[in-house]
């Protein structure tokens, strides 16, 4: 499959060069890439699921290594693996149901048995629904035990698969692939519509005449606010500009064109303004397993200010941002240090950076981290 190989390399390159911005775009592209990997994988007769898992894992590991800071890649890879296992399980149970059905003709008195497959099918349906449900933090929490349970049943499914040497294997193998691709399609759909899904809940959170504060720019936040606006809620928004990239300026512009009453403030004014704010709504880069949030730099300060004034602090994140990892030393290890040129003009400071004189070592250090880690205790939902 030279075609997918090229695609993978291309994507790897983009990830490495930091050419894809935003976790949604990354997540979507990852899912699309994995879909093509799956469709190109040659299916063996036995153990198709493990073959798929193997190829997805191989690609996934490389993708994750290309930019370990972009957690969305890893999340999507894990989701796809989950989908494969799940589909495999549902197929084997269906096959088992077929077997049961044939057995049923022999033993007619067995009503319990008849119940059993139906029940397991229902459980599978529930499990699959839970992954496809509109993502929110609550579903994540429900999700965790689910996804833990599924691999367990899938292994037992594998056992039963070994026992049942059914004849319709070729059709099943095609079916597995087909189903997986279908499910991945749904995942892609999910990722691309997550904003709308989140925005749907806007009215429940934003009340009449409230003051909302946000920092930097997040498309999710923008859609969320606009959705509330469309529902005829009238409220005001404070936008902290989000130094050093000042994406807050763009957000403010965007909000104004949509007819929202907007106030732009500097990041350092957040603490002064927070007492007038009813709710802080921000986007995130990733949500960790402990509930901590990796978010654009400056958010930890906003969260602290919100806590001090007992203002609800709400983080909006699509399901692809929910990461099952526990953060260890996130300020450094899950951070990306960008170029100092975003902070200051090289030309103006070039004489401070002359290593030819003085001690020969830079006296001026410029640190430009991209992310902040907001510990879970500062978050409201």
């Amino acid at each position, binding site marked *: 499959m030279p075609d997918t190989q090229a695609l993978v390399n291309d994507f790897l390159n983009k990830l*490495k060069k930091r050419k894809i911005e935003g976790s949604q775009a990354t997540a979507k592209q990852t899912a699309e890439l994995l879909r093509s990997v799956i469709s190109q994988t040659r299916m063996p007769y036995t153990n198709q699921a493990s073959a798929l898992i193997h190829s997805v894992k191989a690609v996934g590991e490389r993708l994750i290594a290309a930019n370990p800071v972009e957690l969305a890649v890893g999340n999507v890879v894990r989701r796809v693996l989950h989908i494969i296992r799940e589909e495999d399980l549902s197929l084997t149970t269906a096959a088992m149901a077929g077997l049961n059905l044939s057995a049923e003709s022999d033993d007619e008195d067995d009503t319990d048995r008849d119940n059993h497959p139906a029940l397991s099918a229902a459980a599978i349906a529930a499990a699959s629904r839970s992954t496809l449900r509109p993502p929110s933090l609550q579903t994540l929490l429900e999700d965790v035990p689910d996804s833990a349970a599924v691999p367990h049943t899938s292994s037992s499914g594998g056992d039963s698969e070994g026992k049942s040497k059914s004849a319709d294997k070729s059709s099943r193998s095609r079916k597995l692939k087909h189903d997986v691709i279908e499910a991945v399609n749904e995942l892609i759909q999910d990722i691309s519509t997550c904003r709308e899904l989140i925005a749907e809940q806007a009215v429940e959170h934003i009340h009449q005449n409230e003051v909302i504060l946000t920092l930097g720019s997040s498309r999710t936040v923008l859609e969320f606010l606009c959705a509330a606006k469309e529902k005829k809620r009238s409220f005001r928004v404070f936008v902290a500009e989000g130094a050093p990239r000042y994406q807050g300026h763009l957000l403010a512009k965007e909000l104004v064109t949509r007819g929202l009453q907007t106030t732009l403030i500097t990041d350092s004014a957040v603490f002064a303004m927070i007492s007038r704010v009813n709710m802080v709504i921000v986007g995130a880069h990733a949500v960790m397993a402990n509930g901590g949030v990796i978010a654009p730099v400056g958010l930890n300060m906003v969260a602290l200010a919100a806590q001090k004034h007992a203002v609800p602090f709400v983080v909006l994140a699509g399901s692809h941002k929910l990461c099952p990892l526990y953060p260890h030393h996130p300020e450094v290890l899950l951070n990306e240090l960008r170029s100092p040129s975003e902070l200051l003009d090289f030309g103006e400071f070039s004489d401070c950076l002359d290593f030819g004189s003085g001690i020969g070592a830079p006296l001026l250090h410029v640190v430009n981290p991209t992310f902040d880690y907001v510990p879970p205790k500062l978050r409201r939902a």
Partner: protein
Amino acid sequence: MGAQKKGATARVSEDPEELARHPLQAILLADSFTTKFRPITLERPKVLLPLVNIPMINYTLAWLESAGVEEVFVFCCAHSKQVIDYLESSEWSSQPNFSVTTIESHNSISAGDALRLIYERNVIHGDFVLISGDTVSNMSLTQALQEHKDRRKKDANAIMTMVVKQSKPSPITQQSRLGTDELFMAINPVTKQLLYYEDKAEYSKGFISLDKTLIADNPSVILHNDKQDCYIDICSQEVLSLFTDNFDYQHLRRHFVKGLLVDDIMGYKIFTHEIHSSYAARIDNFRSYDTISKDIIQRWTYPFVPDVLCGSSAIKVERQGTYRASDVTLSRSAQLGSFIFIGQGTKIGNDTKISHSVIGERCTIGSNVTIEGSYIWNNVTIEDGCQLRNAIVCDGVILKSGAVLQPGVILSFKVVVGQQFVVPAYSKVSLLQQPTQQDSDEELEYADSTSGTGELRSDKLNGDIAPDLSEIASELGTGGVGYIWKVFEGAYDEEWRHSVAPIPTDKLVKLMLDRDEDEELLTQDGNIISASGELKTDSDGNGSEDDDNEDSRDDYVSFEKEVEATFLRAVHENVKVDLAVLEVNALRLSYNMASVDCGGAIFYSMMKLAVESPHNSASELHRNAADIVTTWQKLLKSFLHDIDEEIEVILKFEEMCLESAKEFAALFPQILHLLYDKEILQEDAILRWADEKEGADESDKVFLKRSEKFIQWLREAEEEEEEEDE
């Protein structure tokens, strides 16, 4: 890239020029055609030298790739085999949408030859990026390319766009932070056309000369000395044919750019594109190697930083700018300072201190080693107790225990330094013997880098080393292997300019003193007021280290200098006293000074002139001073309206005798007398000065004591007068 593809698909509607659109091409010169990196470049081409542990050419290629270049022609000359082998084995040979083609040559001795050869190959079909393989950048080409194309449409003679970046040169050493000489460029601020380019200004002369027509033809010209040439050029095809037509063009800047600027027959124009937030710089010498390494570690070149370039799993950035590979063996007691890089498989022993350094892969570093500001490449062994400061240590070097590298040392491949041996500062050590000195002829400087290296390499490696080993062992201590290269005459005092080590303080102090003198010369020349004027204020503004930090003081110093320049001009050109008075007055107004300051400043310049004019003895000096004072007394007088101003002059003189012109110290009373005789100073002023000084510290009274006799005489004369009156 996207724009290019669109151009290819949506051809129909576009004009014929768009039809001829080609994928963006680049020519990468993998040979610098200089000898600055010797002795290292005798064994390995410069582009493959590791820069923060990644070969330089990788930075260039990665940038070209990300900037949307689709086809790169790598021109290799010296060590072409190594470059080609490297590129073939690297990831670059298998990139989609990015092809790397090598062009090999064995007889090119300059960039000009290289471009002529590429022209013959006929591979370039449109605009191309010309870059050398030692350039690090993260700029986006889109805008520069667009500007270039737009200009081309309007004016077919706009054949080249040079990328420049602001970077202030050091006012003291007159070199940029990259160790290159201060660069002067005259640019039309509206059209961005480059009008003048001079990278080898004569500081001894202290001025640069611009063509008259240049100023006549352009409504406004800005002369920059704070721009850095990034050596990234966007060129049209004509550039190649121009090189072919002018077979004497060798150097890209010295010949080609200057040639085009001077030549007004063809009317070709060069434009500039200034980048602000992005980074671009070329490694031209050891100093820039050091500077750019530090810039990379400080992430100015993001996303072309080690942790991103080599796949982040291998190298992690930690706090304080520490880059560490995953499998470094580090002793618990080792102290790692800020801004360091440690490559894979390196072992570091107990109590070793490392700061501001790059350490390559698989190095073994013993205990109690101190490494500061050094660049250590791969597979280096450093035994216990060594000390390294601002050195470059190439692959496979062994430092036996207790060896010391003083600042600026370069150890080439596989050198062994003996126990306890101290390698003196700025020495270059190699296993290869130094090639015999070439003529200092400009042309040959390029010639020997290629023709010389090839032969030398084969000769030396084929067996010359073995018999020599015993003989040279002594040169690097017991057990040491390698030759210490001699520094050629004349080159020695330039060594520190381009070294990895920071400039020693004593050099800076010396330069600072020199500069003061230079500046006098600079202002003395009245013909290029605009240029020198700007330069002067520029350097004054920057040179706050040596001047007092206070603004007023700064102002006064520059005012004093202006006055001095005016005065000198008046002397040399026999300007009438009235005119000189007028000029000084104008200066006084423009600097917002009191006439007190004028008197002081004029007197200062007069005395300085006296000191500087030739004299053998004190009496001759006295005569000099007397002459000058006699000639110019009217000038001085016109600024001394009252006693306070006269006292100021005396104080100034005292100050001079203490500081700048100590020769006068002995002559103090005589000069005072002279001034009195010439009626420049009234006796009241002198007496009041004496009274004021009575109460001062002992140390302040030196001159008072010296002139005691004179003052005594004055007092007596006064009394006599009074008596007579009665």
